[in-house]
């Protein structure tokens, strides 16, 4: 695989008021250009992880390295330029009064000259197909559109890594697909590394690699197929496996042989009607 872009070594973190560690000696690497999904139920430490990577919180123990820089008080501003984050609530991360102002916000913070700002705002809005909404106010946009604007805001800063912190969990299915499709296209085009933190396994299924978190520790890591094959354990962790995986399993129990690797709903349907004629 590619070289490591983010690496965590023995990272532990505890919130002030709590006794339990939110993260307990966590170590793993994230590789350049991959789509990594971090899944886990509420309180598994997955959102804490996102905040640590961006220096919004500092670990009590351990080391975090991002793009070759060790994360500390001095390096956080450079690291924040490398990592763009999209948060859960579309409304609560929209700073500007209009779409263009919001995209420009990050650029203003980094002291980018105005001429270049105008260029970058237009470019990044075009990339997320929101360039027709330049002067629109946020309350006239749908959740999915707002999240795409948030992605444009992140993109304008030309990051190497995008973190989606439950970015699709408040969206309707169409908005979710819109946002994920946008990220997928961008990732292919710009060789971005995507870290998606989610409890939606359908979303995680499309990742290159999944890390399952439980009680502040890495419970398991592997490809989506590997992860979904441990179905009973996942349910015990409070995670629901995708519908198509459940279906495939039920088929196998009935003696209908479907392929072992992960299939989306459409793929499963295709496999069923193309290979079942012989029966």
């Amino acid at each position, binding site marked *: 695989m590619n070289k490591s872009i983010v690496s965590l070594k023995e990272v532990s973190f505890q919130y002030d008021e709590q006794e339990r560690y939110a993260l307990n000696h966590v170590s793993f690497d994230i590789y350049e250009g991959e789509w990594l999904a971090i899944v886990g139920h509420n309180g598994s430490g997955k959102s804490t992880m996102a905040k640590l990577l*961006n220096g919004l919180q500092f670990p009590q123990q351990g080391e975090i390295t991002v793009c070759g820089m060790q994360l500390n008080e001095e390096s956080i*501003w450079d690291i924040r330029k490398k990592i763009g984050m999209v948060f859960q609530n579309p409304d609560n991360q929209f700073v500007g*009064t209009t779409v263009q102002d919001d995209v420009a916000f990050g650029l203003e913070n980094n002291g980018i000259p105005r001429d270049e700002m105008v260029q970058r705002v237009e470019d990044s809005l075009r990339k997320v197909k929101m360039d027709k909404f330049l002067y629109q106010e946020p*309350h006239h946009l749908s959740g999915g559109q707002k999240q795409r604007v948030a992605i444009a805001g992140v993109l304008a800063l030309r990051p190497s890594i995008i973190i989606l912190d439950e970015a699709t969990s408040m969206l309707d299915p169409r908005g979710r697909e819109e946002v994920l499709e946008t990220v997928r296209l961008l990732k292919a085009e710009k060789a971005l590394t995507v870290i998606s933190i989610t409890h939606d396994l359908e979303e995680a299924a499309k990742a290159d690699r999944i890390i399952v978190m439980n009680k502040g520790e890495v419970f398991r890591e592997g490809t989506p197929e590997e992860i979904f094959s441990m179905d009973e354990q996942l349910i015990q962790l409070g995670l629901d496996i995708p519908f198509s995986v459940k279906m495939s399993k039920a088929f196998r129990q009935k003696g209908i042989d479907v392929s072992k690797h992960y299939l989306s709903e459409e793929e499963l349907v295709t496999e069923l009607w193309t290979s079942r004629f012989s029966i």
Partner: protein
Amino acid sequence: MMEKMIFGRYVPADSVIHKMDSRSKLIIIFLFVCVIFLANNAVTYALIGIYTFFMLGMSRIPIRFLYGGLKPVLWLVLFTLVLQLFFTKEGALLVSWGPVKIYEEGLKMGIFISLRFFFLILMTSLLTLTTTPIEITDGLETLLNPLKKVKFPVHEMALMMSISLRFIPTLMQETDKIMKAQIARGVEFASGPFKERIKAVIPLLIPLFVSSFKRAEELAIAMEARGYRGGEGRTKYRQLSWHLADSLQLVLLGMLTILLFLLRS
């Protein structure tokens, strides 16, 4: 509906006044408020009237919008008139009708002061009718910039203002949602005795407060993640541009001031 109450103020149109820099508009309004006190006779008031209506005409704002903004304050103007009419007891007696006595000076002062009031309201509503709130914020931020030297938090104030403006519609929508949720649970907002209605506001305000605090915290995190660290070293995306029209408007006001000085008694 509530949205209109606040944002309905701005009336988009393609006029000279709309295109003016918000800084020059703010300066003009500020100076106008001072200059208007120079007027003290019929000629000078007429001059100010001409100026005000000239500006209104240039703004191409339909009269009904102006009237809408004026209606609530018109009573105040009338009240001032009446007050002056009855309580100034100087000059020749004009009308004596039982206990009501109207003096010449009272009539004059009444008319002048309400006219002054009227012109002031017209000019300030002209500002809000032709300038978006965010433009006003930008203008204020630039104009107040020198105050940074005395540690006045100009950038922070402007940011606070623009974030408030951005969140007003969001909070309105939320209020609407909470209201419906509470109505579904049996709270009566629109009927019942006054005391009950005031009490009904509590189940509306508390959830609104709680969620606003949550929003504020999330917004702060999002801003920090996008590299916000105060006004230092920040560039600005929105740009104000001063045109010839802005300078000419200031010259016009200057001329008015000189005329007022010459013609006042």
